């Protein structure tokens, strides 16, 4: 197990380096400098700015400097907000994103697994087809369509919930963003759970359990749920990536000051270091999460370790 874990961690490092190098190169391949303005600055000033941000150094040296900074959690200075560093900008925005993302994942797991199991137990009936049709709709409709339609319905027409991110701390401000973010994941998780649950319910050990007189609920809870949830566990990596991507849109629509909003602002303002910082930050998060899922999977299903 230790060997497997170490191998996995070693395997994640090149992935991360690849991501960072790719993002770094893309930003530095940009035509024109980050400080190009309408008005031409005197060459001395330009040289000073370049020296301050180490833009006059050769690219490998800049990359080494960036990596060195990363190891200490320093993502460099922001090119637009001159008095803040990228780490500060991300650090101040991340708690909001984390809260919404975590709630969305929990909500998605809860609803997805229960509705998937329910559909599997009623396989082939109208209920099953209804749940699956609904989940296909959830997969197909993009977050940026769901969000405004929900706002239009619940905030503008019915006025039950706030349309945006109210400044006071209240439960109601979480409802729409979390639901929006969770819906596509609920749909995926429900489909995955249903498919694997149907598979597991057909196995011999389930038949034995049934034959011993266990009720359906107990069979599902005690025997079938754990093996049936393995595909859901391995989906958690892509799910996190999906939630992060979705959060960019959700934060934009609901006006939540999170990392996704920073990213979009940075992208539109051409704040290269901020955009680069967010990409590196989120990529690290996703790679780390995939790693955790891999290790967890091996803990639960020992066969994986010896493949």
């Amino acid at each position, binding site marked *: 197990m230790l060997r497997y874990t170490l191998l996995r961690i070693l395997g994640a490092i*090149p992935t991360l380096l690849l991501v960072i190098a790719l993002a770094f190169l893309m930003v530095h*391949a940009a035509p024109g400098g980050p400080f190009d303005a309408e008005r031409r600055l005197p060459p001395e000033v330009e040289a000073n700015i370049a020296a301050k941000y180490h833009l006059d150094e050769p690219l490998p040296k800049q990359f080494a400097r960036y990596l060195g900074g990363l190891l200490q959690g320093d993502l460099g200075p922001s090119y637009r907000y001159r008095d803040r560093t990228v780490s500060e900008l991300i650090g101040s925005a991340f708690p909001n994103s984390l809260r919404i993302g975590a709630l969305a994942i929990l909500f998605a797991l809860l609803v997805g697994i229960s509705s998937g199991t329910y559909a599997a137990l009623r396989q082939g009936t109208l209920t099953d087809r209804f749940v699956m049709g609904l989940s296909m709709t959830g997969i197909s*409709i993009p977050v*940026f369509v769901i969000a*405004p339609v929900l706002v*239009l319905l619940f905030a503008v027409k019915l006025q039950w919930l706030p349309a945006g991110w109210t400044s006071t701390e209240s439960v109601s401000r979480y409802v729409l963003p979390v639901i929006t973010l969770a819906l596509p994941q609920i749909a995926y998780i429900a489909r995955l759970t249903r498919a694997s649950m149907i598979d597991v319910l057909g196995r011999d050990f389930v038949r034995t359990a049934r034959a011993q007189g266990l009720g359906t609920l107990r069979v599902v809870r005690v025997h079938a749920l754990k093996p049936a949830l393995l595909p859901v566990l391995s989906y958690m990596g892509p799910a996190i990536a999906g939630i992060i991507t979705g959060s960019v849109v959700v934060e934009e629509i609901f006006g939540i000051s999170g990392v996704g909003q920073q990213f979009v602002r940075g992208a539109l303002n051409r704040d290269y270091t901020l*955009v680069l910082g967010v*990409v590196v930050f989120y990529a690290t998060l996703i790679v780390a999460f995939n790693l955790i899922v891999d290790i967890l999977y091996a803990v639960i299903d020992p066969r994986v370790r010896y493949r």
Partner: protein
Amino acid sequence: MKTVKVTGSILLAIAVAAIAGPWLSPNDYVTTNFNAILSNPSIDGARWFGTDDLGRDLFVRTMLGIRVTLAVAIVASIVSLVIGVTYGAIAGYVGGRVDAVMMRFVDTLYALPFIFFVILLMVVFERNFLLIFVAIGAINWLDMARIVRGQTLSLREREFVEAARLTGVSTARIVFRHIAPNLIGIVVVYITLTIPQAILFESFLSFLGLGVQEPQTSLGTLVDAGVGHMERASWTLLIPASLLAVILLCFNFMGDGLRDYFDARHGQ
């Protein structure tokens, strides 16, 4: 096959409307009219979908948006098809260590948040159509590569491939002439599932203001504009949003239906 036929007809109808629609309307997509800002959909003046905040005709703009959306989907899918089939067929046919390394690389790429790279690309370089097409296609080939590799692995053991090899046909010719045609069924299925992904990416970028630029438009751009006016003119949001949803749903259902159909045939 019923789902496939129904969804296929809906998609065809939408495509035909998108191509023919702008000719049927007396309006065009750039002319602004400040006397008719955000006007309701009506028969008068052929404003079937109303107008936007600059008084431009939304019917024509929506039809153009569908054209752009479908064009992106098709081109991006072709890009992902070419990359995915080539990569998967080579990995599957050569096999052994090459295959292991190539598939390990695909696994690595799976872990990356590609959409962020596409956004980075859009920020760094000038936004043009071609770049959007290629970038979206270039990130969508992973599934295709995996599927094609799996199929190729089983195909290369078949007699006709062995016969070709024994008669001295070159590797490249075997891959493209003898193996590739046998992949068409499964590739078609996965193309129909890749298309909605490409559409999703494109509209996501356009929604963030990083995709197709004004006065050109796409469904994502239209939804983005609609969000700004939904309180006063909800149709500016609901029409493009529901069309986008219908298109995506149809492609997904069609892909699902096709997959079931091919699976059933393979099972026999």
